[in-house]
């Protein structure tokens, strides 16, 4: 009898404690909902909101604003969200240059920043911060996987990326693992729409293959123009260049292209099946990697909010670090610099019925860590 009473008391106290921790959490989502990069931001928002909805915690409130892919606008919104809306957590920024303008100052003001995509090297190493989490990857990771993959077949690579922090991280990451010769290293303008000059250089370079990191509309323009150019050097790239949000607009020109990713629709695990189904049911389209990353960020925040008060920074951070979630990526855990340790695969663009999508070919890295974690002293 005594045992029963103590068990009941314990159960009661646990339920009380979990009630006690249903403290309000205010999340400020700043993402790109207009302009050329809007597809990425909309997938980010929708993936995140799906996780929040599934968590069913009525104390979580999300305010969403559009940054228009402009750093100055992102900074204004962040200031407003922190000062007048009094948010506890910021999230949602797609682009590394915008993140660099917002995240360091947000964490300096004692707010959490949980990144759904952008992961510049500058915040992963020496300047890592206890309040800055990245639910996606470190910028270099997917490019590193392609560098490793290229070793197998190609001796001479032509590599290109846009001229902004993630573009530099991209080519640095690729070269970290690629052992062959780099025929040429080209930086294009962010938002560039005409790649005739670069395609002419590819043709003249004598490379065995091309590695192109061109997210959003840039990749669409490049792939369409490349298909018409008569150049038949194979293309490869990180998953961003061939993500679900752009495949439809690129069309059949993308078929057969190899790209790297930490997730694909056909990744075989229970959480992924549920996620893809729920996303399609909710929004009527296939999710992209941006949606998955944001979904995991949403799950992370919801999981921590269920157990700790966000005002108690230390406790909330400890709960986030546990990463107690069912990620569609399968395995998910945080490294010492609060960036994920995860598997990275090479994928191929295939036609599934009428829809272009990615299929996993083989893992390139298992439990891959980023190169900067060792410089992070927390």
């Amino acid at each position, binding site marked *: 009898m005594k045992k029963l009473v103590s068990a009941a008391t314990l159960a009661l106290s646990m339920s009380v404690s979990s009630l006690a921790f249903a403290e309000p959490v205010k999340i400020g989502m700043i993402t790109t909902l207009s302009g050329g990069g809007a597809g990425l931001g909309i997938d980010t928002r929708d993936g995140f909101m799906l996780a929040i909805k599934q968590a069913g915690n009525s104390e979580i409130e999300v305010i969403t604003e559009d940054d228009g892919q402009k750093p100055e606008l992102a900074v204004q919104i962040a200031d407003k969200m922190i000062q007048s809306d009094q948010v506890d957590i910021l999230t949602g920024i797609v682009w590394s240059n915008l993140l660099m303008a917002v995240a360091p100052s947000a964490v300096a003001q004692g707010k959490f920043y949980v990144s759904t995509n952008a992961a510049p090297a500058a915040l992963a190493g020496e300047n890592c911060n206890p309040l800055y989490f990245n639910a996606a990857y470190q910028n270099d990771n997917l490019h590193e996987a392609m560098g490793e993959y290229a070793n197998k077949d190609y001796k001479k690579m032509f590599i290109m990326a846009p001229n902004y922090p993630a573009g530099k991280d991209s080519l640095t990451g690729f070269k970290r693992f690629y052992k062959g010769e780099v025929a*040429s290293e080209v*930086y294009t303008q962010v938002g560039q729409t*005409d790649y005739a*000059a670069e395609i*002419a250089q590819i043709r003249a370079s004598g490379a065995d293959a091309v590695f192109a990191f061109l997210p959003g*509309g840039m990749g669409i323009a490049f792939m369409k123009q490349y298909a*018409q150019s008569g150049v038949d050097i194979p293309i490869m790239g990180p998953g961003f260049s061939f993500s679900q949000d752009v495949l439809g*607009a690129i069309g059949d020109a993308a078929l057969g292209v190899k790209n790297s990713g930490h997730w694909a629709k056909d990744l075989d695990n229970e959480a992924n099946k549920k996620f893809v189904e729920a996303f399609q049911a909710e929004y009527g389209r296939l999710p992209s990697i941006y949606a998955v990353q944001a979904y995991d960020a949403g799950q992370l925040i919801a999981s921590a909010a269920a157990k700790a008060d966000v005002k108690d920074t230390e406790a909330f951070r400890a709960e986030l670090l546990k990463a107690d979630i069912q990620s569609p990526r399968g395995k998910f855990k945080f490294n010492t610099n609060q960036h994920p340790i995860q598997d990275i695969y090479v994928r191929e663009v295939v036609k599934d019925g009428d829809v272009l999508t990615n299929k996993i070919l083989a893992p390139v890295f298992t439990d891959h860590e980023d190169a900067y974690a060792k410089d992070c002293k927390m």
Partner: protein
Amino acid sequence: MTLALALEQLLNGLQLGVMLFLMAAGLTLIFGVMGLINLAHGSLYMVGAFACAAVAAATGSFWLGLVASLACAAAAGAIVELLVIRRLYDRDHLDQVLATFALILMFSEGTRWLFGSFPLYLDIPPLLQGAVALPGGAQYPVYRLAIIAAGALVAFGLYLLIGKTRLGMRIRAGESDREMIGALGVDIRTLYTVVFALGAALAGLAGAMVGALQSVQVGMGEPVLILAFVVIVIGGIGSIKGALLGALLVGVVDTLGRLLLPKLVGVFLQPAQAGMIGGAAASMLIYMMMALILAMKPRGLFPAAHA
């Protein structure tokens, strides 16, 4: 650098120039005739691309899409002129900039509301697919050659229209003295609507042709608009001839700069840095050129006669 690469890049520059000309011609006509700064010109380019993509997706024919792009952009231009622009002619440039900037936002959000935020698919028609051999061994996409030809045709057509027809005469007269031609009994309001719709149709045509090469998405017009302004400032505001030469100059300088500057910097620095610094310098090149030209010829290369 081989001859083939140089030739290919020259053609690329020409193609970019021709595309810019289609944008700049409308912009400079509207400024020349009505004294109006139209920031929403890029939105008409977007309207053309979306109309082409939507009609091509529905009917399966790029050519019907092209016709639709001309019709939709011209119609959008005429409607905007009748409803909004007409009230701006007597206002100063700041009011015009404000109002046409508002139009950009309305066009962008309206398009997003109709078509969603994800880029649309628009492919090159089968007739113009593939590449042809150039002297020197390189290959060049047929479609880009077709854009150059279409642009040349439009330039010639505009030359005939402005130089040889009654409408052209009125446009020129409107440029030199709008009160006088009103006094002579020309219906200046209709003339303005026609000129605005013509400029819009040219922008729509450019949008549709380029849409097949790039991604058809909301906000695609603004980067081109900036270049088109550079073109008309270099060429001399209000001058079609200036717009043509300015566009070709900007196209060729921009394309060759992107090729040559990284190589030039590469002589002094490591390849990775050279790519970054050269790339950044190349993106500034046309603006430096504009500054230089304005320093020597403050009214552009071919200033319109009246200004």
